[in-house]
Each structure stands twice: as structure tokens, then as C-alpha cells.
């Protein structure tokens, strides 16, 4: 009888502990940044930082043109293959050099948009990236597209997480309460 009671007490405390740790576990948010357009990179970083402000565990997975958001401003031509070099010449990357998906007009569109953002005190993508890193948002470059496009870790900003693949993204999204492809 005594043993049974202590067993029950043990079980009850184990359940309580499990519930507590479950409560403390932050919700997850996953954003897939697949576009190198300024008007996509902006909402990605706005949502990532705001998710972190909600106490969420936020991961942004950068793939295809989205990798450009992570490029250093002075990355220059990247890759070995002439096709990779050509791609990097047309899509320079780094938040400062992103174009607009519409009304780009060879860079006039983004420059007007940035001028407006400055006038109306909208934080630029670059600043939001820094805030995101300060808030512990994880920035994951996609390994396969890095290889495909000839982009190495040296071409990208510091403080990124280890490059990962679709499997890591799916594992994370399965547990996430918010997953968006932008």
C-alpha cells in the first residue's frame, strides 16, 4: 500500500514536470525565404523579428534567390563555373542591392522605395537582419542552393547557422505552429 502511494506520487510529480517543461517550450516559427526581391525580403525579416518578440523560436531558411539576402555587400562574382559567375553578376545580393519584384526599372524602383522607407522611418532590411540576430533568430542557408549557385560561407555574412537541407526544414516545420514560404 505504501509503495503504491509513493509510486502514484512519483507519477504525479513526473506528469507535473512534463507539463511544466511543455509549457516553457517556446512555439516554433519557420520562414522559407526563397526570393531575392526586396519586397519579399522585407516581410520575411519583419515577421521573423516580430515572431521573436512573441517569444517564439524562429528559424529562417534561405534558399535559391533568397540566399542573396545573406550575401556580403562585397561578395562580388561567386562560384567557379562561368554560369555561376554570370548568375552572381545579375543577382548581386546583400540587402542593399536587392531589386523589386515589380516596377524595378533597373534599380530605380528599389531606390525610390528605400527613399520612402527612410522618409517614413521604416527600418531597412539590413537593420532588421541585425535585430533578428540579436533576438536569437536562426538564419539557415540552404546547402544545396549554395553549391548550385557557387556561394560559400565566406560570401555570406557572419553569425549564420550551419547550412542545412530540406530534411531539416521539414523536421522543423512539422513541429512549428507557423510555417511560411515567402
Amino acid at each position: 500500500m505504501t509503495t503504491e502511494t509513493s509510486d502514484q506520487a512519483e507519477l504525479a510529480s513526473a506528469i507535473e514536470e512534463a507539463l511544466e517543461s511543455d509549457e516553457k517550450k517556446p512555439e516554433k516559427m519557420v520562414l522559407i525565404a526563397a526570393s531575392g526581391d526586396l519586397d519579399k525580403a522585407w516581410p520575411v525579416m519583419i515577421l521573423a523579428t516580430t515572431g521573436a518578440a512573441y517569444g517564439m523560436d524562429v528559424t529562417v531558411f534561405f534558399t535559391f534567390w533568397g540566399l542573396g539576402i545573406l550575401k556580403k555587400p562585397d561578395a562580388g562574382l561567386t562560384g567557379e563555373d562561368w554560369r555561376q559567375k554570370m548568375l552572381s553578376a545579375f543577382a548581386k545580393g546583400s540587402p542593399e542591392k536587392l531589386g523589386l519584384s515589380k516596377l524595378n526599372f533597373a534599380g530605380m524602383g528599389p531606390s525610390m522605395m528605400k527613399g520612402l522607407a527612410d522618409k517614413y522611418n521604416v527600418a531597412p532590411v539590413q537593420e532588421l537582419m541585425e535585430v533578428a540576430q540579436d533576438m536569437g533568430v536562426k538564419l539557415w542557408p540552404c546547402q544545396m542552393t549554395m553549391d548550385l549557385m557557387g556561394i560559400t560561407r565566406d560570401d555570406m555574412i557572419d553569425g549564420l547557422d550551419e547550412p542545412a537541407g530540406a530534411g531539416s526544414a521539414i523536421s522543423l516545420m512539422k513541429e512549428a505552429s507557423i510555417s511560411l514560404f515567402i
Partner: protein
Amino acid sequence: MADITVDARNLQCPMPVLKMAKAMKDAAAGQTVELIATDRGALSDIPAWVNDMGHSLKEQFEEDSELHFVLEKA
């Protein structure tokens, strides 16, 4: 008078929420934080955030087109 004041005037979305979140994180339980913002979006964003995070909105008013939110940390 709140224990901590956060000036988010002239800052646009998402900065008022980010600044608020940082200040609330640094505050001790029971302390009050006053946010001053001019972004009209804060009118819905701040109460939504406070509600989700389980803190309480003690006071909210507008003065000279500036929005004031007084929050208490849970």
C-alpha cells in the same frame, strides 16, 4: 509614472512591438513599462501582443497624436 519608458515615436511597424518586447523582457515581474508610439498600427498591434504574452495593459491614451500604452509585466 511607469517604471520604464520606451520611446518608439516616429518608428514604424514592427519596431514598436520589438522595442516593447525588449523592454518587457528586461523588466522585472510587476514592473510597469510605458510605450510611446506614433505608428497607428500600434493601436491594434500592442494590445494583441500584450494579450498573447499574458501581460496586462493597465492604461492606454492618446495625447498630441502620440499613443501611450502602460503595460504591467506578468
